[in-house]
């Protein structure tokens, strides 16, 4: 190990050297997400802004695709991060993993350039293969889909082979099975049909069974590792919780898929099944809060890495509120008839993706930086701690302002456009022009700027935290003792 406070790859094991590459791209794409979100938000307030140059559809596509990819990169990085630590052996096939990283990153760059420069194509299959698929979140053209599958398979090989060679822990078992499901589901999104009902039916397999099942379990694994790392929680406790979470999450989330099958042509029995099981989905999220908060309290909030712990706690609450509470609010068909496809949905989408997933990746960035700088001290009385504290505060303040603005706009839209006007073209614009809606969009934009300020501070903090720090990181017994 080299001197404390100096950022050098010499401090990292093989998997971790690869992890930090993924993290670097992730944070850059997070920046892109914020940028294109701001542009799309401005267009709500001023529709002529960039009209015909970067239309709303282009900005929005880049916004949500950057999100999906930076979160995936963050997850992949996090798994490479913990791989050698958890298995006790070097990553199997690391050279392949490195090669795949560069291919993956190059593919992302090409896709983004095509989105920006070509934007749309003729109504032919070749547009779907080369330009974009026009299906929300999984717009990436088919050639890139295939590339993604190949990359994920290689990643999976790294993970499974490494655990096979070394210790196959409880976390490892859940992780490996979850990654199979996660990759397999992506295939459901890779086909063309003229039938929009069929299209949406399988599209939700990817989207819902990702975010409300496989991703949720993946962050459960990351949380388990994070709690062991930052607070020295006993493995047995953490793994038991992980199994409980998996049982509850898959038990509610798999059939909870039905809450997207109310209005797309699918049969009426989904009202009951989707309503019932999705209404149970908040339960595992409560379990996760209890778990994280209980452990943190048990260890008197004394951790070896305060910023990481703060983001882990933020994840537990963000997941609970964003997915659990905000999701539950519109999940029964009786309300969803009116909220379906309104800003209400956007409010939930923002709080859930940020609260459940962005937070977890950020926690891992801090765990990584601590070691990258040689295992520096990151507990209380850290020099320059105001940066991470203000970053987490501003990001949350901005997010909450956005989510509340969207929710109020969504209330208004569901009442006026959906319930009263019956969702006609004119009804839509009657609702969009209502002062409550316009104010909601205005506050969303203010929240967006605050969020962007928080992002800048976060990026700055990530580049500098622990830089001139000379104290070594606490070890767990000390963290508990102090």
């Amino acid at each position, binding site marked *: 190990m080299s001197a404390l406070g100096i950022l050098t790859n010499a401090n990292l094991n093989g998997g971790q050297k690869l992890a930090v590459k993924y993290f670097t791209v992730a944070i850059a794409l997070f920046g892109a997400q914020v940028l294109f979100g701001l542009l799309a938000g401005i267009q709500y307030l001023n529709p002529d802004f960039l009209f015909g140059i970067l239309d709303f559809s282009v900005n929005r596509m880049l916004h949500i695709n950057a999100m999906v990819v930076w979160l995936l990169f963050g997850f992949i990085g996090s798994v490479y991060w913990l791989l050698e630590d958890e298995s006790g052996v070097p990553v199997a096939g690391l050279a392949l993993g490195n090669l795949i990283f560069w291919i993956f990153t190059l593919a992302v760059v090409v896709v983004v350039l095509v989105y920006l420069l070509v934007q749309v194509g003729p109504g032919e299959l070749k547009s779907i293969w080369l330009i974009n698929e026009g299906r929300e979140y999984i*717009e990436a053209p088919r050639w890139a889909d295939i590339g993604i599958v190949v990359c994920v398979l290689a990643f999976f090989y790294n993970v499974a082979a490494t655990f096979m060679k070394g210790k196959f822990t409880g976390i490892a078992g859940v992780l490996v099975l979850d990654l199979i499901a996660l990759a397999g589901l992506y295939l459901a999104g890779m086909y063309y049909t003229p039938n929009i009902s069929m299209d*949406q039916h399988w599209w939700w397999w990817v989207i819902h069974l990702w975010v409300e099942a496989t991703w949720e379990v993946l962050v459960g694994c990351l949380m388990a590792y994070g709690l062991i790392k930052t607070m020295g929680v006993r493995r047995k406790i953490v793994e038991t919780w992980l199994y409980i979470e998996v*049982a509850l999450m898959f038990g509610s989330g798999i059939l909870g898929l039905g809450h*997207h099958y109310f209005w797309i*042509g699918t049969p009426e029995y989904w009202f009951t099944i989707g309503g019932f099981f999705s209404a149970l989905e908040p339960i595992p999220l409560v379990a996760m809060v209890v778990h994280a908060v209980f452990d943190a309290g048990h260890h008197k909030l004394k951790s070896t890495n305060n910023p990481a712990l703060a983001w882990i706690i933020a994840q537990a609450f963000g997941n609970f509120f964003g997915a659990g509470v905000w999701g539950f609010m519109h999940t029964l068909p009786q309300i969803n008839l009116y909220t379906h496809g309104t800003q209400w949905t956007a409010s939930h989408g923002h709080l859930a993706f940020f609260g459940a997933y962005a937070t977890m990746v950020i926690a891992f960035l801090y765990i990584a930086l601590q070691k990258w700088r040689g295992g520096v001290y990151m507990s209380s009385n850290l020099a320059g701690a105001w940066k991470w504290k203000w970053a987490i505060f501003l990001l949350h303040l901005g997010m909450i302002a956005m989510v509340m603005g969207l929710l109020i706009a969504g209330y208004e839209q569901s009442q006026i456009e959906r319930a009263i006007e019956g969702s006609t073209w004119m009804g*839509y614009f009657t609702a969009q022009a209502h002062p409550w809606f316009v104010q909601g969009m205005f506050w969303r934009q203010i929240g967006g700027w605050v969020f962007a300020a928080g992002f800048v501070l976060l990026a700055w903090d990530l580049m500098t935290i622990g830089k001139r720090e000379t104290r070594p990181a606490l070890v767990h017994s000390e963290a508990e003792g102090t």
Partner: protein
Amino acid sequence: MAQEIWWASPSFWRKSAIWVTGLSFVILIFLTFDTVKQITAGSPRVPAYSVINKRIDYVFNTERNFQVPVIGQDEPLFGKMLTEEEAEALVSHGKLTTQAKNCMNCHTLLGNGSYYAPDLTKSWLDPSWGSKEAREQGMVDFLMNPQDRLHNALGRKMPNLGITEDEAKATVAFLKWMSSIDTNGFPANFKPIDQADAPVAAAPATAEPAPEVSAAPAQQ
């Protein structure tokens, strides 16, 4: 810590997780087989593509207590009766156009997508097209040059997406077909365009239409 309570043991929860997941997945697969059958084009809920040869309406059904699509008399799109294959090819061209032009990153279709522009589920039936006679050409003209046709006070225009006339017609076919899907009453309370043949002088505007028995999708 000598002996372990069964419900706090990792192995109990590991087994539970496996069983619960497996069971949920198996149930989902069974339901999926049935659902896929029911949403295949040509079924009662999702009509065959040749439905674009017919009049499609959206009428309150007292039995189900919400509006349902009602397939009526012949009313060929652009005045041309199409075979099933021709209709499928046309709708498919339209669907490809909606994907290649990224409609779903501004609009919702069946309520999914983006919230920057109106939902298109029933756009074929939207009263703002004026009259049934003007509708087909009006939609084609709009799709080809939306940037010059602003319909709202917010100044929120649809951009020119380079849609050709063929693509526009195909897209209209796709939109017409989509309006025939049985969406369990979404959107609720929609007020469809008047498609009666001769303008009826004083139709009772608020009364519910009589329950349609004839061609309503056979679904309880």
